[in-house]
């Protein structure tokens, strides 16, 4: 979840760096802070910094962080030569380091040497059973090998210990969705909403899962969470506005003949439809007529 300002700054820097305008270190720091995956760029630009002795020494102690960042990016791009080179530098500088040990295990993982990587991670965990990063690498490895049930099991075990790790809950929810295990995904989003009730992303994702599960109660609940998303985002979230329209229609289909929900439901749907039409008129006028026909199809 990247804020608007961060996204703007990131794009600015990326443009600048791609066109040789400097700001590489700031760009790389921002990527690290936002935990974004742009490994090809990190590799290219990070390497150019590292290969320039003057720029490297200007980094002082941060030099080692850069080696780490480039090593991981290299692994992601399957460039094992560069990864190994970076690792060698770090090994020389920090011979007994657990952090470097983790990178070594990651390199094994990146190369697909699953058994050796597993051994390395297990031994790291023996020394430090609370190393969150290593726990998560194990989940990632299971995923890479296509062992989704293994990944789910490991991730659940991880969350038993580190139940405040919101990223992990999100990852688990997304894995459940990819396996169409919607009830389990719903549970994850419920945990997230309990922990951080003002984050609209969780309300939206929860609503999407409820809608997918289907059934009158779930449609009604989904509608509430689309509504809270709209509340939390000042009415700007297009997906939530569409969600209201879809839910109202679905509820109407299921409760045909019963008059209870009609008035409330249709008012909210009209408001959502109006908001969408207004937005499209200003920002996507070419699609306005398609939107209007689509919305017409969703009215009772």
């Amino acid at each position: 979840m990247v804020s608007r300002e961060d996204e703007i700054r990131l794009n600015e820097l990326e443009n600048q760096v791609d066109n040789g305008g400097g700001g590489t270190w700031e760009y790389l720091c921002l990527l690290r802070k936002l935990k974004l995956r742009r490994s090809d760029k990190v590799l290219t630009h990070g390497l150019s910094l590292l290969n320039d002795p003057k720029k490297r020494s200007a980094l002082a102690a941060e030099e080692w962080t850069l080696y780490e960042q480039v090593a991981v990016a290299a692994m992601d791009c399957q460039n094992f030569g560069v990864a190994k080179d970076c690792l060698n530098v770090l090994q020389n500088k920090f011979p007994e380091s657990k952090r470097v040990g983790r990178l070594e295990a990651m390199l094994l993982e990146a190369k697909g040497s699953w058994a050796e990587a597993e051994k390395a991670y297990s031994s790291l965990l023996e020394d430090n059973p609370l190393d969150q990063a290593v726990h998560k690498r194990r989940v990632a490895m299971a995923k890479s090998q296509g062992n989704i049930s293994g990944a789910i099991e490991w991730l659940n075990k991880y969350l038993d210990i580190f139940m405040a790790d919101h990223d992990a809950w999100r990852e688990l929810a997304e894995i459940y969705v990819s396996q169409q295990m919607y009830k389990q995904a719903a549970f994850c989003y419920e945990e997230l909403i309990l922990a951080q009730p003002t984050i609209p992303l969780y309300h939206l994702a929860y609503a999407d899962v409820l809608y997918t599960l289907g059934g009158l109660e779930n449609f009604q609940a989904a509608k509430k969470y689309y509504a809270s998303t709209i509340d939390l985002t000042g009415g700007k979230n297009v997906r939530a506005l569409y969600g209201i329209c879809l839910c109202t229609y679905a509820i109407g289909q299921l409760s045909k003949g019963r008059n209870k929900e009609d008035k409330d439901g249709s008012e909210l749907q009209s408001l959502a439809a109006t908001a969408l039409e207004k937005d499209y008129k200003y920002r996507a006028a070419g699609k306005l007529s398609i939107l209007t026909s689509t919305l017409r199809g969703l009215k009772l």
Partner: protein
Amino acid sequence: MKRSISGESMQLCTVHTSAVNGILIGRLSAVNDVVEISDSIPLFHSQIGLLPSLEIALMMVEEYFSEKGLSIVGYFHANERFDDVELSNVAKNIGDHIHRYFPQASLLLLDNKKLEALSKGNDRSPVMQLYSKDSSRSWKLVGADGSSRLTTREPSANIVLLDYISSKKWEDLVDFDDHLDDISKDWLNPELFK
């Protein structure tokens, strides 16, 4: 099929860290029972198993193309992992959903390995696998000797695709997910192949 293949495969390159999917547009040719795929709309690169955005996408895509005498003729899917060659349940379910609208609908699964091998060989065959629904109502892989075949209209399709990949054209591709995040982005990608 030229534009079709390129569009879909490019979409894969855009977000190569997750599964992606798309809808195939075309028509049933009156002439010889051929389904001509003329276009494809890239759909999602996240949370593919969720219904709301899929339903909206299908409605809007159908609305747009029916005015042009075209309809949804199939579904395209690319798996997250390079070595995953299986048709997932999610892909099958979405395929089923589309099949209800268009009984001739087929399912295309990107062959990751073939895509990667493009730069090394002279393979002119499409980089995807064709699945169609058989009498048992399940999706079956169509072999080269089957009664259905997937062909590209232009023999140079793969060369064009390689070119698009190396020039990083995928960075400009807009899918439906991008549109929902920012409606000023156009899922029709009008400028992309000019």
